[in-house]
């Protein structure tokens, strides 16, 4: 029997001792001998044709080693464009980014030239000396306007701006909606914004001419995929390139793709035979890193007199940006997540993804799930308004009941099999959230606050997040002759405490403390396959691979020890790194066992076991596991100025089996605050010429500590039936339902005005305008009957 000691415990993190002293080693901390610094010349216009590039001034500047254009890099590149990250046979060809633009520039920030210099200061001086002449072309700014026949084209060589359209449907939504006793329509503009980890992107490429190996460090969420991209783009094989991942200062999706810059830097190192470092600065992150951006939703729901959904149909337009890095995953996720934890018998959403002259879009924390959830939550609030029903009651009536779990939804996943909610109790989670937030006592609090001129509101929302995206994640667990237990994985660490999680899982099998386990993530020389960190997948995938590998190693340890100690294996236990019979004196260390399995020249393997003390497992999963979150928020709005103050926020989240309750709670905090950002603050502003203008962190607003109320996180565990550990991913769960709850709360606070919020983020100025319009309508007698 293995006594579970670490899984489920809030053990101190392995990552902390170095980080807390400032001894983390992030990509900018890497300094290679002879290293040069790079800077990219980027397009100042959203759309145009490059007429000429004159780099003579830059090349003449002392301290400049090279100024590269695409033509120069072609010497080592196999293609001008990146491969598409998720190969697709439905998307048109030639939609991915160029390594450097050479003819058309399609967004502000598109890289045109690469300067390599002694240091970044000189490199930036050189940028100013490069003369680029660009003939401007009309830019496309709005993704909906992009689809109008009269719209200019985002790319000159394309017939139009429609990248792709598809229909997500099941049942007969047209029939269900038109035949329903009641209908509501909801129109939404959803905007999410950038990832903005506090550490921007970066890469160091060091081509060793002597050994003919390219060493690359990237602040990345996908080391193995990065290696694949670099191999493909530079014509190298696995032996000629090693990708390593230093400490990563957050990713949130922006580091889950391979960018032109990383390829260009590596190409430069090959050409120069010198290490080249590029660190993205914050301004570059605004114009060169992927964002989630606008989605326009026009949807209609049909429902019965009880408020039960009969069908939803409509259209959604999603901004794809100028180039596609990944695929249609973002729009696809949003469209499949509309039903969420609710019973929706019929559904049809026509989705169009359009190209615009802004930087490409791809998933940021939440990956389209927040948008689908928000759409559904708005519909449910509209139904409540229409029928004068309590919003919580409408949700209760529509939630998938516990008795129906596991619930096969009518929706098909990307793999074509049906989406199944494997475990959970959705009504119970909602009830708990409402109870913890004292929903029952809210009306009394609201009245009392009104007496002192304060407008309180209560917001409710629930959402679901699929996690554990397959097909697998790699893990090898190895005990070396030193006795060191190591875990190697293609999973990626970016602050979520992955190393601690995997160490806890391993420690439970191998009878040592997690802090004595070394976990190495994202080093392509230690493990050959890997997919990386995204979609809240790694505890499920890498966690289970590690668990199964550790179990195999344990079995081998016991078998070898049984042989070496001459004791039946069922009597043996591992305690504090030693294997022995409890209560007896004789024991043998893990290191000694590893040693015994390393072989001695000329001798047969003593234990009769094969050599080595390791196991590699790629736990495969094809279906996601689903965890539901219920949010309840109490807030205060000042209608005079449109300000919103969050007072108390309750989250109930099904996290499946919890490996480390402290880090799981931390993920929910972080995810929720990102969701708060998307609801109230984060707006990436562009003008009609697709020129970005929120270009500093003083204009692009992320929440700071005073804006965040106390968050009451209630973790519930409905173990997943989809993996041996029963775990569910939580990295994005906190984000998904946030906007629905906050917007619901604002509308509730201002219910006397009867405003309806159709966009996020919602700003005070916009709230003010809605209140004003409503007041004017009332005065003019135009407003229809208010409903609570």
């Amino acid at each position: 029997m293995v006594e579970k000691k670490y899984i489920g415990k809030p053990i101190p993190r392995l990552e902390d001792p170095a980080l807390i002293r400032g001894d983390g080693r992030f990509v900018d901390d890497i300094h290679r001998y002879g290293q040069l610094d790079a800077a990219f010349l980027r397009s100042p216009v959203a759309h145009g044709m490059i007429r000429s590039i004159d780099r003579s001034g830059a090349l003449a500047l002392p301290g400049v080693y090279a100024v590269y254009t695409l033509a120069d890099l072609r010497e080592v590149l196999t293609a001008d464009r990146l491969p598409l990250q998720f190969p697709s046979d439905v998307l048109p060809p030639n939609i991915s980014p160029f390594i450097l633009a050479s003819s058309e520039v399609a967004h502000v920030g598109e890289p045109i030239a690469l300067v390599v210099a002694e240091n970044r200061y000189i490199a930036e001086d050189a940028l100013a000396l490069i003369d680029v002449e660009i003939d401007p072309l009309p830019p496309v700014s709005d993704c909906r306007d992009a689809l109008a026949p009269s719209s200019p084209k985002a790319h000159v060589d394309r017939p139009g701006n429609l990248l792709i359209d598809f229909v997500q449907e099941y049942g007969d939504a047209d029939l269900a909606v038109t035949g329903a006793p009641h209908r509501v329509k909801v129109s939404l503009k959803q905007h999410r914004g950038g990832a903005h980890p506090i550490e921007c992107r970066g890469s160091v490429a060091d081509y060793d001419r002597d050994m003919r190996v390219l060493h690359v460090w990237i602040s990345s969420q996908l080391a193995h995929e990065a290696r694949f991209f670099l191999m493909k783009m530079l014509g190298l094989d696995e032996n000629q390139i090693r990708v390593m991942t230093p400490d990563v200062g957050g990713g949130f999706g922006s580091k889950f793709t391979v960018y032109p810059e990383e390829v260009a830097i590596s190409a430069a190192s090959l050409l120069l035979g010198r290490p080249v470092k590029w660190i993205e600065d914050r301004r570059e992150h605004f114009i060169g890193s992927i964002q989630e951006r606008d989605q326009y939703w026009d949807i209609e729901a049909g429902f019965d007199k009880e408020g039960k959904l009969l069908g939803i149909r409509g259209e959604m337009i999603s901004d794809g940006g100028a180039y596609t890095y990944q695929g249609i995953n973002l729009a696809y996720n949003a469209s499949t997540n509309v039903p969420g934890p609710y019973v929706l018998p019929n559904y049809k959403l026509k989705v169009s993804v359009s190209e615009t002259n802004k930087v490409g879009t791809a998933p940021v924390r939440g990956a389209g799930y927040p948008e689908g959830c928000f759409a559904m939550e708005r519909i449910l609030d509209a139904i409540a308004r229409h029928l004068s029903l309590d919003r919580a009651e409408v949700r209760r009536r529509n939630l998938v009941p516990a008795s129906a779990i596991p619930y096969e939804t009518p929706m098909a996943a990307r793999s074509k099999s049906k989406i199944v909610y494997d475990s959970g109790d959705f009504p119970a989670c909602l009830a708990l959230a409402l109870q913890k937030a004292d929903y029952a006592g809210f009306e009394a609090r609201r009245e009392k606050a009104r007496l002192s001129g304060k407008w309180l509101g209560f917001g409710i929302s629930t959402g679901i997040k699929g996690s554990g995206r397959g097909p697998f994640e790699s893990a090898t667990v190895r005990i070396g002759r030193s006795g060191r237990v190591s875990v190697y994985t293609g999973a990626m660490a970016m602050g979520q405490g992955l190393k601690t999680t995997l160490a806890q899982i391993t420690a439970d099998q191998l009878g040592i403390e997690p802090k004595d386990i070394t976990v190495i993530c994202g080093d392509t020389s230690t493990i050959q396959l890997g997919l990386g960190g995204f979609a809240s997948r790694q505890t499920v995938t890498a966690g289970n691979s590690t668990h199964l590998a550790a179990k195999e190693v344990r079995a081998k340890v016991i078998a070898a020890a049984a042989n070496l100690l001459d004791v039946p294996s069922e009597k043996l236990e591992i305690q504090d790194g030693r294997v022995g019979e409890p209560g007896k004196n004789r024991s043998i260390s893990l290191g000694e066992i590893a040693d015994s399995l390393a072989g001695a020249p000329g001798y047969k393997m003593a234990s009769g076991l094969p050599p080595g003390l390791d196991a590699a497992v790629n736990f495969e999963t094809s279906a996601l596991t689903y965890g539901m979150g219920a949010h309840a928020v109490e807030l205060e709005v000042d209608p005079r100025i449109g300000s919103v103050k969050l007072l108390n926020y309750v989250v109930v989240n099904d996290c499946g089996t919890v490996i480390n309750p402290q880090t799981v709670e931390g993920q929910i905090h972080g995810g929720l605050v990102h969701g708060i950002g998307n609801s109230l603050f984060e707006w990436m502003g562009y003008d009609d010429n697709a020129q970005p203008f929120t270009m500093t962190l003083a204009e692009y607003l992320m929440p700071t500590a005073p804006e965040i109320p106390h968050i009451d996180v209630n973790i519930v565990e409905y173990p997943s039936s989809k993996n041996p550990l029963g775990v569910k991913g939580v990295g994005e769960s906190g984000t998904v339902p946030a906007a629905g709850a906050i917007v619901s709360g604002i509308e509730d606070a201002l219910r006397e005005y009867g405003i309806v919020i159709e966009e996020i983020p919602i700003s005070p100025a916009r709230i003010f305008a809605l209140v004003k319009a409503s007041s004017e309508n009332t005065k003019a007698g135009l407003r229809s009957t208010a409903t609570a």
Partner: protein
Amino acid sequence: MSEASDPRIISINVDGKQHSATAEPRVTLVDFLRHNLQLLGTRVGCEHGVCGACTILVDGSAVRSCLMLAVQAENKNIHTIASLATGDTLHPLQTAFTKHHALQCGYCTSGMLMTLVEFLHDVPDPTEEEIREAISGNLCRCTGYQNIVKATLDAAAELRRAQGK
């Protein structure tokens, strides 16, 4: 440009030790610390004075080192995260941060801690609201701040205990 723009030897006192390196006057203090002096604990997040990742102490005051020139730090006492622990003994803030999971990726942590060092010196018994206001100039994208506040309350109590208050 003249001599006045040329690189010169800049000598600054960091964490109790005198360091010198040659740099142009335009080099920011954070870049000088990190690249000229190889003192890597202080981090760069935005280079326009909003995120607070680069916060260090200059003569005891928390300052954004991306908004100071290295030359301006001469004859001043600079303290970075490296000065907090004494050998194996962590500063109470560091202990509390670790205990309460107040860091995730750790990138904002250096700046966050230095901000709190000055704050707790000035306000040894803060309320939660005061802590939130004190760190309002430090962005964290990972933690959502709640555990940072919790850790700070704990560290403040520990500091008061240690000083016999």
